[in-house]
């Protein structure tokens, strides 16, 4: 399934439109196979950045964002197996989350993993980190060039 990523696909509210939703991750994440669920938390003042974190003290956390309106010319092709696993039908019930890597120093640039987004079914709140079929077109360390993304 090919999903074009446009501005309108940037809708952080999922589930019951709450700022905090539990996302089931039955297959864990790459390098973190033992994870089974994390919560997606956001604050209006920090969008597009959101937290995806374990629901325990000192748990693992990632900063993620929806690429809509941020990464121009981004599209994801999700494999048939992943479409089936996630039971998604189209852009309306699919959320794309790209994991953000912060620079070690504050002057550096933020990068995004465009190759392995976490795809979430907005209705069932089940997610999976998928390597997109069109991964060769994109970088796993896409530098967020805020000035140059055509915002």
């Amino acid at each position, binding site marked *: 399934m090919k999903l074009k990523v446009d501005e309108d696909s940037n809708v952080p509210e999922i589930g019951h439109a709450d700022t905090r939703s539990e996302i089931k991750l039955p297959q864990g994440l790459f*390098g973190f196979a033992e994870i089974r669920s994390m919560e997606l938390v956001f604050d209006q003042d*920090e969008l*597009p950045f959101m937290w995806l974190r374990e629901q325990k003290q*000192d748990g693992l*956390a990632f900063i993620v964002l929806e690429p809509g309106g941020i990464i121009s010319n981004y599209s994801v092709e999700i494999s048939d197996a992943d479409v089936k696993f996630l039971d998604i039908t189209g852009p309306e019930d699919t959320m794309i989350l790209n994991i*953000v890597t912060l620079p070690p120093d504050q002057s550096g640039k933020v990068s995004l*993993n465009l190759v392995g987004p976490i795809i979430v079914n907005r209705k069932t709140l089940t997610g999976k980190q998928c390597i997109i079929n069109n991964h060769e077109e994109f970088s796993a360390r896409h530098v967020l060039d805020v000035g140059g993304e055509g915002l």
Partner: protein
Amino acid sequence: MLILSRKLDQGITIGDEIEISITKIEGDSVKIGISAPRSISILRREILEEMQSSNLAAAVTSIPKQSNLKSTLAASSAKQLIAQMRAKKAAKEGTPDNK
């Protein structure tokens, strides 16, 4: 691990549905053909390794109790992006974003 020796144009079958053939050998590089159902994911191992190391690099530990990215997102490009998203949203709604 099962290790098999194969020559050019020879192959291996795995189960009923997966077939692997050696299609070209050139210097230290081997071209491998794989037939498998579409539901089976076939990836170069480096991509998986890259995803693992990318996730490890991105993992944030000792996060604040409340969702507060502010200190974490002090990097200037992150701050800029937040400001731009807010401005864009405000422009779209035609009102200042005062949430």
